[in-house]
């Protein structure tokens, strides 16, 4: 009797805990798990993967005397191909379908009306996919460990492989889910479907190549700091890029009255600062100041291409957010705040990297000037479209699309036209002709080193002038909007 009572009570408490937990977690995750466990697809792939892993193990076990020390590596890669197929193809594809069907079946609007918000919906999709991935990975982990016992592969490699593959899966799922949010019409939807299949097949190829590379080389280099730096950089890049895609999709789907910019801007800032720190780490490991130049150029390009989307946000913001935030709450919506955020981060990097390079003093003049000039080009390329777009009187509200279009036009104009003129006018001074050319200009500065000093000052002067002009025009718009 009493034993029965005990066994009857235990699942009760467990159930109650489960319910409380389910109350707190994202309802989309609850739904996707319920749905997922009911579909055949999940069980088919789950058992297929297990069977495949089992076969590989048996084969490896049987063959382990013959090929001795390579066995571990080969089986590791074989396991990874199985796990990778599910993680890099099946799960992201399922996530895309699940998201696209919300739009097709018009359940998306019903979800929106509940007030759950696009961000939580997307997070639910992402979360349930990650959960599935963890389930698959944990089922495959014993097999991966088995490859360790076959020799030829070490434990850190296996752990790095599993962790990186999780990061890669998050990245691919984010790409898939964000792509699905673009599918607004039937035509676009079928087009996107093909794009997605292409992307995922490519992604699967990259993933498996990555696994092979890790399997081949990891053991020899896991002890080096460079290996850990590279692994961390790859992981960081994949996860933050995935999150950036995710956050921008959520922002795009939000209402204008919502505080939609926060997540995307936060990830942008994290990615910028994180990448900066990774470059600093690389510099301290290698002891080569050129890493700082590479960092400055990379981050400047990043600030221009990705930052453009932040800096060209639509004007103004819902008055509710204005009241609670103020003009320079940089994570809040609005063009002015986006612009200031991007430029502040850029300047922070410029000052830090220049300071460190000067302090070390080993950097050749050419590399030093490139380091200094790169952020100026970024500032120039971010400010100019804003200023130019504001000269265009129609439409009266500067749309983000318009600024991005102007940016594209300017890039083509500034990189393409001066070299063209140089071809036609043979005695033209190439240095000054391409002074504002973000590509040839930087290369020229590197080549001319000492002679390029006035050029760098000129670029900085123009960039700062345009920067302020863009800032003031954004600010006056913001004031107008609020009036």
């Amino acid at each position, binding site marked *: 009797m009493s034993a029965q009572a005990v066994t009857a009570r235990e699942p009760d408490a467990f159930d109650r805990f489960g319910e409380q937990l389910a109350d707190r977690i994202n309802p989309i995750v609850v*739904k996707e798990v319920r*749905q997922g466990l*009911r579909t055949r697809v999940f069980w088919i792939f789950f058992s297929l993967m297990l069977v495949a892993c089992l076969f590989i193990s048996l084969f490896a076990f049987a063959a382990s005397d013959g090929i001795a020390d390579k066995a571990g590596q080969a089986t590791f890669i074989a396991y990874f191909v199985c796990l990778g197929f599910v993680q890099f193809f099946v799960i992201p594809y399922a996530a895309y379908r699940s998201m696209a069907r919300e739009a097709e079946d*018009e*359940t998306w*609007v019903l979800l929106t*009306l*509940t*007030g759950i918000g696009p961000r939580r919906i997307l997070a639910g999709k992402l979360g349930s996919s990650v959960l599935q991935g963890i389930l698959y990975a944990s089922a495959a982990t014993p097999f991966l460990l088995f490859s360790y016992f076959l020799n030829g592969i070490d434990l850190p490699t296996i752990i790095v492989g599993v962790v990186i593959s999780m990061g890669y899966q998050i990245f691919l799922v984010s790409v898939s889910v964000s792509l699905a949010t673009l599918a607004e019409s039937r035509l676009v939807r079928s087009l996107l479907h093909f794009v997605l299949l292409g992307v995922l097949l490519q992604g699967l190829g990259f993933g498996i190549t990555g696994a092979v590379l890790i399997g081949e080389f990891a053991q020899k280099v896991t002890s080096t700091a460079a290996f850990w730096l590279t692994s961390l950089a790859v992981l960081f890049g994949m996860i933050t890029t995935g999150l950036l895609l995710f956050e921008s999709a959520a922002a795009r789907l939000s209402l204008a*009255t919502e505080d939609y910019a926060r997540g995307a801007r936060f990830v942008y800032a994290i990615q910028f600062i994180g990448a900066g720190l990774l470059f600093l780490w690389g510099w301290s490991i290698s002891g080569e100041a050129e890493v700082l130049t590479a960092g400055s150029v990379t981050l400047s390009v990043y600030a221009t291409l990705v930052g453009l989307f932040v800096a060209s946000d639509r004007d103004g913001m819902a008055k509710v957010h204005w009241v609670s935030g103020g003009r320079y709450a940089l994570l809040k919506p609005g063009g002015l705040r986006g612009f200031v955020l991007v430029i502040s981060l850029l300047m922070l990097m410029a000052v830090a990297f220049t300071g460190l390079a000067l302090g070390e003093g080993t950097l050749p003049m050419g590399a030093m000037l490139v380091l200094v000039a790169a952020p100026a080009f970024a500032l120039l390329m971010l400010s100019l479209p804003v200023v130019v777009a504001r000269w265009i009187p129609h439409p009266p509200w500067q749309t983000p699309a318009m600024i991005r279009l102007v940016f594209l036009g300017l890039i083509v104009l500034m990189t393409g036209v001066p070299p063209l003129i140089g071809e036609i006018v043979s005695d033209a001074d190439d240095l000054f002709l391409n002074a504002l050319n973000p590509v040839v200009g930087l290369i020229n500065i590197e080549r001319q080193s000492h002679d390029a000093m006035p050029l760098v000052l000129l670029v900085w002067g123009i960039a700062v002038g345009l920067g302020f002009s863009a800032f003031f025009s954004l600010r006056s718009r913001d004031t107008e909007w609020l009036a």
Partner: protein
Amino acid sequence: MSALLEVKGLTRYYGALKAVDDITFSLPAGTILGFIGPNGAGKSTTMRIIATLDVPTSGEVLLDGKSLVARPDQARPLLGYMPDRYGTYDDMTVFEFLDFFARAYRLRGNERKARVDSVMDFTGLMPLKDKLTSELSKGMKQRVALGRTLLHDPKLLILDEPADGLDPRARIELRELLRALASQGKAVLISSHILTELSEICDTCAIIEQGHLLATGTVQEVLSRTSNAAAFSEVELTLWAGAGMPLEEIARKTERLLLEQPLVTNVSVLNNALRFRLELAVGATPASGWVEEASVRVLKVLVNAEIPVTSFRTREHDLEDAFMSVTKGRVQ
């Protein structure tokens, strides 16, 4: 007391197409408003705007006195919307579906259980609790969808063509459910392109065509207004052949007499019955009561000519006629 929902000058362009053109109406709590119009009239567009899923090109919508165009986030908890496609998930049971949306509405623990149970009770879904939604009949799917809109106890229900494709029994059950909801004080906005579906459900109706609102008011108001506005009316009379003359002869004599009368057209004979139409000349504006006046005059002539008339009645106007007359027959 002001109405729960007020729509003022609502206009929505799709490019150059004016899908909704300057629509104004209001809906007090506890009433059911039928939105009637042919396909493409702009019903769904209007309802989507009221459901905060679209924004008007111009105009204003007030829900509980507050603009839902400016603050959709504040309006959403007050409204329940059911699209013309019901929007259900595969691989989910009725209970799981409702439970999921209850979670999405941030209902927790016992409160959620109670809400889901009461909604399943109200819609009669309790026996189907564990059935997959994909296996349900159309009528039952629609009840699941209706149940979903009720989970957060909204003040306004927006139902886009809910009766479309339902069998008569399911339609009657839907009507009962909506009546019950209205008596709980909810305002219901319901659309249809089939008039007979709505005439028994609604308190008030609004007739819409090509984005224009053609008539609004209680069903009775719209009927009397449109019957006056109509340019013709059907009349049927029956004859008695017991007075010596053969029926055919009486009928022919009546037909001749009728055709001599002003406004009478389309006379047809069917055994002992005659049908004809009272119709104003093209372009004449119908004065109030012209049909009654003309009927009395015709009947007087027949009686004076000693025609044995046993019944004489103008066919009663219903919403269908009202609709035909205000839309000037532009529907198929």
